[in-house]
């Protein structure tokens, strides 16, 4: 677990910090208190859902509609967690409650990092590493979000813009690095192409459709290449 915590001093931690520093500014402009901002950072730990709930809180939306909006923004976490489970689990030994705790740290950044780095480790070491990594990154980003809320008035335009570009470029490179079979790379290309299409024509559930359609096409296409039609 300590090794995971040490590995947290890394590019993904820096990139997440940058993203949450940007969010702290938004939260303050929206009128959220410091305690509310930090509670969302620690409890939800998925930036798109946090941004959706921020909008809901500021517009006085009711509990149920806000919950549905946030749940729609978080569906993506389910297939991501599913794909991670066989990697972190030691069959017959790992308890479900350990996996439930670890699952809280599943968010795009930590997931990409885990898919890329965990397969190179011993099976027993993976879950402690992931929890150590996730816990350390969460704690660090939590503190930096609080500091940014208190200290950063407004970032210069170009700095803010450069911070926003960090995330997609980091995902682009490390998702390619995490690909283990051709199907992963084809799925990535399909997702890149379909994401904007579904965003324009089916906003709201666009990411889920991108994943299901793009992923299934990539799976079927590469399966036919591997095994023939039947």
């Amino acid at each position: 677990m300590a090794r995971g915590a040490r590995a947290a001093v890394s590019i993904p931690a820096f990139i997440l910090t940058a993203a949450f520093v940007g969010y702290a500014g938004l939260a303050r402009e929206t009128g959220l208190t410091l305690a509310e901002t930090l509670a969302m950072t620690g409890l939800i730990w998925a930036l798109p859902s946090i941004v959706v709930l921020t909008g809901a809180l500021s517009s006085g939306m009711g509990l149920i509609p806000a919950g549905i909006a946030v749940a729609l923004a978080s569906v993506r976490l389910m297939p991501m967690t599913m794909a991670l489970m066989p990697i972190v689990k030691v069959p017959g030994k790992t308890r479900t409650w350990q996996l439930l705790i670890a699952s809280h740290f599943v968010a795009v950044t930590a997931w990409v990092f885990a898919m890329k780095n965990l397969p190179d480790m011993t099976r027993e070491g993976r879950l402690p590493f992931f929890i150590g990594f996730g816990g350390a990154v969460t704690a660090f980003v939590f503190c930096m979000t609080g500091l940014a809320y208190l200290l950063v008035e407004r970032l210069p335009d170009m700095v803010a813009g450069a911070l926003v570009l960090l995330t997609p470029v980091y995902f682009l490179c490390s998702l390619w690095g995490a690909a283990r079979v051709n199907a992963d790379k084809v799925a990535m290309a399909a997702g890149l192409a379909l994401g904007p299409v579904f965003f324009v024509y089916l906003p709201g559930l666009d990411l889920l459709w991108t994943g299901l359609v793009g992923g299934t096409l990539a799976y079927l296409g590469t399966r036919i290449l591997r095994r023939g039609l039947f």
Partner: protein
Amino acid sequence: MTDAGLGDTWWWPFVMILVAGWLATDVWRWLGVFAGGRLREDGELLIWVRCVATALVAGVISKLILFPQGILAETPLALRLAAAGVGFSAFLLFKQRVIVGVLAAEAFLLAGWLGLTALQGGL
């Protein structure tokens, strides 16, 4: 709305954060744990699930580049696409080192942005 009177109490935002935030998000992670627990590491089903998750994350990437939030939205689309392309090419060229790709993309973006600003200032 039945919640209208509750919006003014100090604790209502925290109920919102717990139920509409924490629960609405973590329930998907827990479902993923239970559904993923039965997957075999070498199974066909896992390859499909990985494809779906990978395509979904790739969708996040292209949305962030094509439709960015905030100030980055004011840069030309061609500049953002070129910066991402330069970053990814640098990543592939230099033994797939992520840091090289990220720095190359940022350098390209800032250089292009400064250049455009200077051009507009000169007109």
